[in-house]
């Protein structure tokens, strides 16, 4: 097991609340307007009931979103909020978080918002490691624009814009994030509140960019996209729980190193306990995490859920603040008169 441990500094600069807050303190007075049965409700409730335990001042929390059904989220949180434009939330949140390390900044985004129009901002936010928690609501469809396929839709998806089936290979958001140098990457599911909250907790504690992919059901345009993972008959079999320091197993399956140097999923009955891969989320090298992220290809035979990667790396806002401090320490705080008169000057009269 590597020495790199989760940094736990995510909240160290955010002021703590003097009074205990509860779920109702985080509910805004706005009427929630998703379709009845939408997975977004479950995620909202999970977040609202989870954030009080962080013990932060409510006024120091900010939710920033792009455009999409999911991006309506900030209106329902009684914190500061910014519902921005399609795809740009990571950029806007970067400016906010980089200039205000005392804030706990959350980005709410959809699969189209973050992986189509905003793909560039997402990967750059991840590599920069600004102190953000990005919650990617993946319903594998464009909800708000009424049901076109998205960059996470499976090949062959029949929608209004793809009557003969979609042609392009989808992104795997976890693989993408790992390739983009993310320091914290996790996956969870709207229907499992306990798991969702445990992942959010770890994301919040991580200083730097945390990406959390949340499988979210759109019951109007892509109903049942994650049913295998919810179906009591099969979910325990196909869900591989990733817990740091624990063997990677489902009820019936286990992950081990394969002969060709990769990893493979085998029947649990066929492996010895010591052969089973033990999850190390803090491993500096992301290749094993990447291999884990590929296990659900083809989709949903066995799906790893949990924190794939959680490593300590200086966050962009800390580094930026350190440069300002260093410049000031070396030559003193800036003086405007001195600046304007620097260089060659001459006097007349």
């Amino acid at each position: 097991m590597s020495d790199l441990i989760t940094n736990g500094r995510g909240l160290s600069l955010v002021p703590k609340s003097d009074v205990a807050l509860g779920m109702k303190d985080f509910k805004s007075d706005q009427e929630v307007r998703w379709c009845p049965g939408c997975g977004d409700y479950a995620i909202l409730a999970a977040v609202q009931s989870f954030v009080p335990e962080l013990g932060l001042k409510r006024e120091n929390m900010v939710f920033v979103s792009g455009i999409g059904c999911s991006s309506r989220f900030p209106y329902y949180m009684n914190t500061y909020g910014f519902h921005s434009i399609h795809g740009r939330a990571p950029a806007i949140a970067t400016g906010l978080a980089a200039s205000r390390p005392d804030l706990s900044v959350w980005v709410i985004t959809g699969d189209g918002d973050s992986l189509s129009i905003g793909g560039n901002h997402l990967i750059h936010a991840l590599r920069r490691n600004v102190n953000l928690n990005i919650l990617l609501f993946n319903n594998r469809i464009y909800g708000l624009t009424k049901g076109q396929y998205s960059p996470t839709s499976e090949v062959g998806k029949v929608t209004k814009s793809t009557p003969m089936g979609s042609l392009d290979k989808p992104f795997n958001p976890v693989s993408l994030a790992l390739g983009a140098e993310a320091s914290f990457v996790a996956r969870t599911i709207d229907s499992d509140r306990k798991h969702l909250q445990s992942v959010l907790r770890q994301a919040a504690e991580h200083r730097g960019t945390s990406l959390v992919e949340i499988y979210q059901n759109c019951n109007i345009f892509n109903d049942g996209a994650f049913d295998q993972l919810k179906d009591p008959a099969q979910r325990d079999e196909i869900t591989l729980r990733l817990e740091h320091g624990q063997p990677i197993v489902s009820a019936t399956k286990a992950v081990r190193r394969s002969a060709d140097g990769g990893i493979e999923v085998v029947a649990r009955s066929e492996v010895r306990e010591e052969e089973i891969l033990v999850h190390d989320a803090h491993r500096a090298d992301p290749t094993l995490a990447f291999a884990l992220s590929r296990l659900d290809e083809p989709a949903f035979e066995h799906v790893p859920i949990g924190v794939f990667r959680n490593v300590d790396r200086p966050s962009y806002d800390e580094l930026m603040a350190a440069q300002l401090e260093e410049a000031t320490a070396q030559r003193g705080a800036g003086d405007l008169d001195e600046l304007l008169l620097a260089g060659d000057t001459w006097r007349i009269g």
Partner: protein
Amino acid sequence: MTKQVQQLDRVIIRFAGDSGDGMQLTGDRFTAGTAEFGNDLSTLPNFPAEIRAPAGTLPGVSSFQLHFADHDILTPGDAPNVLVAMNPAALKANLSDLPRGGDIIANTDEFTKRNLQKVGYTANPLEDDSLAEWRVHAVPLTSLTVKALEGFDLSKKDAERSKNMFALGLLSWLYHRPTEATIQFLETKFAKKPDIAKANIAAFQAGWNYGETTESFSVSYEVKPAKLAPGVYRNISGNQALAYGLIAASVRSGLPLFLGSYPITPASDILHELSKHKRFGIRTFQAEDEIAGVGAALGAAFGGALGVTTTSGPGVALKAETVGLAVTTELPLVVVDVQRAGPSTGMPTKTEQTDLLMAMYGRNGESPVPIVAPATPSDCFDAAVEAARIAVKYRTPVMLLSDGYLANGSEPWKVPSAAELPDISVDFATAPNGEDGTTFLPFARDPETLARPWAIPGTAGLEHRIGGIEKADGTGNISYDPNNHDKMVRLRQAKIDGIAADIPALEVDDPDGDARVLVLGWGSTYGPIAAAVRRIRKSGGKVAQAHLRHLNPLPANTGEVLRSYDKVLLPEINLGQLALLLRARFLVDVISYNRVRGLPFKAEELASVIQDVIDSE
């Protein structure tokens, strides 16, 4: 040998050579000497479009023009009096700009058969009489430099590199420029390589001595210091002035500066400059693209920073949607557009005024944005402070329209003291503003400015949500009510229109008060227009001049000014963008003069256009 000294009131020198010849540095140093001496001056570099064009070719020519005088001047000069040509390409590329009778100082060593062929000369122009109408000073600059540096432990190639300093020395002698500052400059620049410093200084002094002793220069020239207003001066380029203006705005507003930017010519130098000044608490963020640059600046503004983004036309096109978001969320933001020739990539190193209508209207929906345009390189400082003042006071994005000519041009600037700059401090909202004393209305407005409160995260009790969806007046809650939308559209427009009461009236310069023709300009055309107006008046003509620094809203008296002249002439480096706005708004039949050559106007050109309009009266 005693040499004759001739008095001149002004001189325009153009240093031209290969990109590798150090012409920009030579020009900068001559400028510094000239500034120190006390002349008024104006400079304009001309960079090749390619980064490293092949040596000795026409695309590789780089030049620097300097105009200096014993009186106040307005432009870098229409045409040089003196051309320093370091090679045949420099001569060929610049000769057509040099009026007959002008001086050519040519580096004969570079006029080799091969170099002549590279630019299509079949014969050496220094040897046939094709240059008979100019005064040619043929000087073997390279070999004289190598000879002067014989005692140094330098390769021939390294010695040759100092030829620009030899040329600088010669020109410094020719125009009686002080030398100490240049020597000091070289000592500091090459502090880590004292041998190179000494060699450059020796070359510089050899150039000076050459002028003093050689017979090819029988006359030297003196240009007396100019009588400028008392004060401390420095020379400053538009981009540097703009960056300093932004820093000043940060200091005077008490808001930390956050710059989100993506490199683009000719705006990058503002990013470079601001990146140097971290001890002012300035955060500079080189974003992944222009959209992220403006997005991050807006995010920082939401958090209480002075959010700024700097770019050129192509970048403004990308930022449009985010500027619209800033309009509707009513957050302060400064968007700097250093205009360049378009459309598309256009001519990145050339200047234009073609983004006015994009600044004005280039967004979806009714999304009015104030526009400020500096008139001269040093005015970029005040214009930046003014743009920030409007942005923070009215909680609105503001467009600051500079251009390539202002960005790279330089002039002496009377340095203001920090204390005399406007106080643009802001009050963040700190308490609920609802009638019940507990609710916060993020879109309640100040009755005078119509600005909404700026409540930043971290302020207890003022938690609120903003966004791009239409908001109900007052509460800011999402609203699809048709009447509310109409109201909000009008309120946002009224807020921007109301700024007209908070900016200076349009001033008219009409010395005798009886001119019938008004020349109007905006942005960087100020210098050439004013110089042309002087020429007309000198020859007894009557013409009034006015210059717009605020393009949206226009000064309150603009219509009145336009209507009080028989004719209004409006020169623009576009196809009539401001003319379109003025005609639509005031029904005034302005006469446009448009050239879109990527170059500033010339004073002579404008003088003849003005004269034509006067004559047609």
